[in-house]
């Protein structure tokens, strides 16, 4: 017997996508095997971890653990982002547009200006993530795309209802987008088909929705895993986009995570690790301690 007798034959390669601009960019994707199967094919690079920063102060019931790391900077997205990069070594920042969920009129121009300010202040590329309200997100992301022209941001989430407007703005100003669908591979594919009718295929990242340990992680795991199969085993062109996971915010919402710091750190780290095992190419994390654990695990892998 030789173990190569049992190697899988692969048919597809996940698209490579560059986030950022010259001098500060990160490449994601590029794998043509199941995650971490470098023994039987090409795993071009390890997944990338982005750290989440809010553009408005998080609510009172935000996890104490996160406050212990970021309490001193929650008032300033610029300082928060700089702390992630300089103190915790973040490879990328994900700016979460929490301000869009605040009561009252949203000043879109101010939101966009703040994003630009963060982008200018940091040395790593950036993801900008809306709150999930499709109208508020559309208005804000369009303006952000314009104000941050040339930054090569990754913007999202685009959903069925608002994909045109945001994607057009992203295209005009040179950004990539995140297409989000609720835990269903058919819906994910449908969205990609719609989007690729006018938007470049190699500038799309899929967000199949993350749920945390104990709160649906198993669903996310299996949907991510299936998406990756369809891409690398079946070679489906409409499913070869890299995948993004959002374990940070989801995990720290769990009451188990809030009540016990160690549980919380593992809640996020395990959720993240699982989605990386299933095929996520980028994960957005919240706690530096959880990130450290995940990176330690990543240290046990080499690329091929």
């Amino acid at each position, binding site marked *: *017997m030789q173990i190569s007798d*049992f190697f899988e034959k692969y048919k597809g390669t996940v698209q490579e996508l560059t986030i950022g601009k010259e001098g500060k960019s990160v490449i994601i994707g590029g794998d043509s095997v199941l995650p971490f199967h470098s023994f039987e094919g090409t795993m071009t690079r390890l997944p990338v971890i982005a750290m989440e920063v809010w553009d408005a102060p998080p609510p009172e019931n935000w996890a104490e653990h996160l406050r212990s790391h970021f309490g001193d900077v929650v008032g300033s997205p610029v300082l928060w982002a700089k702390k992630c990069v300089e103190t915790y070594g973040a490879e990328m920042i994900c700016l979460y547009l929490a301000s869009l969920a605040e009561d009252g009129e949203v000043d879109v121009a101010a939101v966009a200006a703040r994003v630009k300010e963060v982008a200018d202040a940091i040395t790593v590329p950036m993801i900008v993530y809306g709150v999930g309200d499709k109208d508020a997100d559309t208005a804000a992301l369009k303006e952000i795309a314009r104000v941050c022209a040339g930054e090569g941001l990754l913007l999202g989430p685009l959903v069925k209802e608002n994909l045109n407007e945001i994607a057009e703005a992203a295209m005009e100003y040179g950004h990539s987008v995140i297409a989000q669908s609720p835990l269903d591979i058919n819906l994910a594919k449908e969205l990609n088909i719609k989007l690729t009718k006018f938007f470049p295929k190699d500038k799309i990242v899929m967000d199949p929705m993350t749920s945390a340990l104990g709160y*649906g992680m198993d669903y996310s*795991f299996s949907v991510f895993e*299936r998406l990756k199969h369809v891409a690398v085993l079946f070679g489906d062109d409409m499913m070869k986009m890299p995948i993004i996971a959002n374990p940070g915010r989801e995990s720290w919402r769990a009451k188990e995570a809030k009540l016990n710091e160690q549980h919380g750190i593992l*809640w996020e780290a395990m959720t993240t690790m699982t989605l990386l095992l299933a095929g996520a190419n980028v994960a957005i994390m919240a706690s530096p301690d959880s990130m450290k654990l995940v990176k330690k695990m990543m240290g046990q892998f080499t690329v091929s």
Partner: protein
Amino acid sequence: MPVKASDIQKKLPKGGKLHCKKCGFPTCLAFAMKLVAGGVDVEKCPELESDVKEWIIDAITPPIRLVTIGTGDNALHIGEEEVMFRHEKTFLRAPGLAVLVSDKDDDQTAESKLNKIKELEAEWVAIQLKADVVAVKYEGNKDKYLSLVSRVAQENLPMVLMSEDLEVLFAACDLVADKKPLVYPITKENIDAALPVLKEKGVPVGVRGQNLEEVTVITTQLKAAGVIDLVIDSSPKNLQDAIRDYTIIRRSALTQTYRPLGYPIMSLLPLQAEDAMEEAMVASTLVTKYASIIVLSDLNKDTLFPLLVYRMNIYTDPRVPLAVEEKIYEFGAPTEDTSVYVTTNFALTYFAVANAVEATKAPGYVIPIASDGLCVLAAWSTGKFLGDTIGPYIKKSGLEDKLSNKRLIIPGMTARLLGEIEDELPGWKVIVGPKYAEDLPGFMAKQASK
């Protein structure tokens, strides 16, 4: 892939058309179906050539052997997995999480590790979760080791006996043979000496090779001697090796019925971690990546709970969401002024609400409406959680007669149902609750002071 009854039938006499009934079944196909399902001996058909018999036995033997360690209710059943990926069907038998004790542990340490199995038992959506195996390792003090083995046996948990010294291994095995412990490791070096004894003992055997090829050589030799309840360890040095080895083990067995690797996997990799957090991370990865026994250096209250929930998550059957029964659940001592909370019957959702209602410290009725075990938003968007499913149930529930103040709290996520529900339930005060049940205690306190 499991073999089909029709494929078996074709191998039966006259292409499965003899139908002589000597086997006790009305037709050859009926016999073939029973063979596939398990529970009948192929010998019952007197008309079979021996090579056909062998073919059939091989065809109906599951690609990954089912191995049982321990006895009684606590026994650990592992193996007989059917898929590489849980979305293809489901993972079937959750791995045993083993805690390691050794003769190097002082008595107190060993006792406390054993106690922690019980102490750290946890509950999740009304399901009890705990570590379930004890691995007892020999590290040089034979007398102490043997008495530790006897002590652990009293716990009635599945045991893994670990000793590099065969003589000590078998001495320990003799002490607790009736408990069906797993004896480990049988290696290339000790197999010749071990084999005659193993044939007699009839206990499951843990095989250790330095790599998959070596494992294959040992399992083949054991099987030829009739020792077939095996668990394998390919000694991976890191997660990358573990994923490679365990994937190949599972894949070769399932896709090519490669028998020499058709056994459950035991992993000692977590023991190499630098601290408890890392150990839990490694262990969780192994839960997902096919290990069936995972050995931990200790049980730690900060790390075990997430790992237990994790194992349950990955081994949840994706085809059936965990749901609770649709009925009225009472909390505290309800009066005629007790709030009624409505939600869906997805276990996670229901327990989030039930816990929150308990935390309000006031009595409450919680009603999970039958909604195919979906969360609130999914139930709403598929039409299972609407005014015309909620209203009639509450009307029929008899609560209207018990309450003078009819107060119904609905999930904040479905605020838009307010009007529909009010129309269905005249005389009720329908209140839109908070978005997350966790915020109910504060919310209800404010309501009360209004």
